[in-house]
């Protein structure tokens, strides 16, 4: 379904999307990005570095954030900018929520606050995005 610029208002919240990475997904992401870092597949080594388990790649969570925005914007939307800060590690086999809110609209460009949080509300990854949306003809 396509979202249009006049469907959007400042303060509007985006629908919540839950993501949960399996260990297989972490492995596939390491493979697809040619990333040999052991903290993503070797539990013993991850613990040696002080992590409780293998950890989800920061850029995978960034890619989820990008997908959260592009899925919301629909096929005719265009993502123009995206930034995020990785504040804390995410673990496999746990649910994380992606949430967002419209902060500004200028012409056909929408600014969003977007973030990843635990179901308890601890923000792991705050971010901002800008997207261009089509105008209803």
């Amino acid at each position, binding site marked *: 379904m396509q979202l249009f610029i006049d469907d959007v208002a400042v303060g509007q919240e985006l629908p919540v999307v839950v*993501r949960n990475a399996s260990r297989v*997904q972490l492995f*596939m*992401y390491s*493979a*697809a*990005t*040619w990333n*040999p*870092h*052991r*903290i993503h597949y*070797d539990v013993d*080594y991850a613990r040696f*570095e002080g992590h409780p388990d293998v950890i989800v790649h*920061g*850029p*995978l969570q*960034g*890619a*989820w954030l*990008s*997908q959260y925005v*592009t*899925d919301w914007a629909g*096929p*005719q939307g*265009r*993502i*123009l*900018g*995206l*930034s*995020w*800060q*990785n504040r804390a590690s995410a673990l496999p086999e746990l649910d994380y929520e992606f949430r967002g809110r419209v902060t500004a609209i200028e012409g056909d460009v929408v600014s969003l606050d977007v973030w990843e949080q635990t179901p308890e509300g601890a923000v792991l*990854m705050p*971010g901002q995005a800008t997207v261009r949306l089509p105008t209803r003809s």
Partner: protein
Amino acid sequence: MTIDQGTAGGSAPPSLIPAHTMALVGSLLRGPVTAEITAKEAQRYAQAVGDLNPVYFDEAAARAAGHDGLVAPPTFVQYALVQGRPIEETRTDGLFKGDIPLELAVQRTMFGGEEWDFLAPVLVGDRITAETRLASLDQKEGSKGPFVRITRETTYRNQSGDVVARTRQIGIAR
């Protein structure tokens, strides 16, 4: 609370950034490297992320969405430029040894985040050239002691020379 070095009164904390490392700010760290965007690699990336958007898999869907052909996921471009390297060049933690190590008086470096500008969609078949520069090194005082914020900026140009994306990757070294 985080404060910038030098804004607090009293004596300045010891620098974690040697002068010869600070002198690298603005210099080229990597590139230029060029790679072609292939459907197979872009789609493997999309599948690994779990992003099955039809514009990455179905040319008709991509054209219906206003593109000139199959699109790559926005953040894929940086992985299209990763060059294969032998296993012998990995360190104990599995990462590849750095091309130009940044010498800093720190124990470890963590991924801190990214900032992207997407200027044009990257299409399958594009030939993308990337250059990475050391944009800045900033010593900060955090709640767990001093740290260095490392910003590496990569510019991606297509075969016509147009900048299609820029990314600033933030590393936190403490």
